[in-house]
């Protein structure tokens, strides 16, 4: 049986609108749910609340049988406690670390031998062998995206969140990399939630679609 993600909450930014989320969806393995909506409607905020980076004003977020946030009981799990993986819009790669060091970053507690073998596996899987000793600014946008994915997946998250994963790329590269990203996401054994404002991108990458309307209430 699939785990269920329930996210019913509201959050108000100091200088922005109030965003209401009323979301209940099966988080299926090998499945990509796309949160689709126009720019500025609060998609990223919803994703940040799911990741534990922003704290809703009130409501409840639950994944499987673990409560991540509940305003009544003042429960708020940190991103580390939620065990999620988040790929940022511009990838947020650590500029002072090489590709291999970026990928190994989350494996701090693992023995060195295991860390090395898992990093090598990821580097091969994402075809980054030639780039392994380069720094993020020395590689292309597409390669940066693969490093960000590899860095997140190596920590074996329970749920993968992607914030506009193609928007940092130029148009031609974006079209080219859609299929590659789709291929990588379909291979994953974890549920994926992806945010985008691009409808064609949503159609190619997604299996389930959640449309966020201008009044900022995502509904399945």
């Amino acid at each position, binding site marked *: 049986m699939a785990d269920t993600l329930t996210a019913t909450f509201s959050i108000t930014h100091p200088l922005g609108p109030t965003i209401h989320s009323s979301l209940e969806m099966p988080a299926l393995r090998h499945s990509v749910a796309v949160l689709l909506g126009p720019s500025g409607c609060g998609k990223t905020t919803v994703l940040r609340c799911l*990741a534990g*980076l922003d704290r809703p004003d009130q409501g409840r977020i639950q994944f499987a049988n673990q409560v991540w946030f509940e305003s009544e009981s003042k429960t708020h799990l*940190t*991103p*580390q406690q939620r*065990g*999620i*993986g*988040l790929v*940022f819009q*511009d990838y*947020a*790669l*650590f*500029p*002072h670390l090489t590709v291999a060091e970026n990928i190994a*970053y*989350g494996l*701090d507690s693992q023995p060195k031998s295991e860390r090395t073998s898992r990093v090598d596996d990821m580097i091969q899987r994402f075809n980054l062998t030639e780039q392994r000793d380069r*720094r*993020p*600014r020395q590689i292309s946008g597409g390669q940066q995206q693969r490093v960000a994915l590899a*860095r*997140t997946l190596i*920590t074996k998250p329970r749920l993968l969140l992607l914030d506009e994963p193609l928007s940092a790329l130029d148009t031609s590269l974006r079209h080219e990399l859609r299929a590659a990203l789709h291929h990588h996401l379909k291979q994953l054994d974890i549920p994926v939630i992806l945010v985008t404002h691009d409808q064609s991108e949503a159609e190619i990458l997604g299996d389930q679609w959640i449309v966020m309307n201008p009044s900022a209430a995502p509904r399945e």
Partner: protein
Amino acid sequence: MDWQAISLSLRLSTCTTLILIGIGLPLAWWLVNTRWRWRFFAEAIVALPLVLPPTVLGFYVLMAIGPNSPLGRIAESVLGQRLPFSFQGLLIASLLYSLPFAVQPFMSAFATVDRRLIEASWCLGIGGFGTFRRVVLPLAWPGVLAGIVLCFAHTMGEFGVVLMVGGNVPGVTRTISVSIYDDVQALNYEAANQTALVMLVFSFFVLSLTYALQRRLLQPWPTR
């Protein structure tokens, strides 16, 4: 040349800088990140030594560590000596006086670190201290280094606070600036000039080294 004063100033600056690295880094990190509504109050306290005349700060420190104050009595029972006109008293005064010269550059350096990198680290399962050590400190390092050097150099040149709290005890509280002042008062310009020249060359060397190191350390990657 007053080598004893030079040695004492170096010792005082080293102790002050090392302690302020330990206090200043977490304090600056907290000030940059806290959402506490009274944060401005804490910032004002940290910055006070920048605007207070050294004699005012020295006077209050002297009162606070004097034998009639609770702190002074505790220190006397623990250390077996009074804090005023001692090296320990001088160190307390230097810590307060140099605090903003360490904390403010640290804060500026931390503020330049892209928030998303910190959040990315959290989302990869790394806690607050690990993120600080592995992401924040390496990226903020040039600014942190500037704070360390500024703190050291500022303590080397202290005068007013030193005189108020430490007086002029050779080998205990007589620092370079007090020594130069003494020589000038005694019309011994040659001795004053020699010590002052050492200070000038030393300060110039330290600042040049800092700028050179900063240029070398300055990352070839954007921090924002």
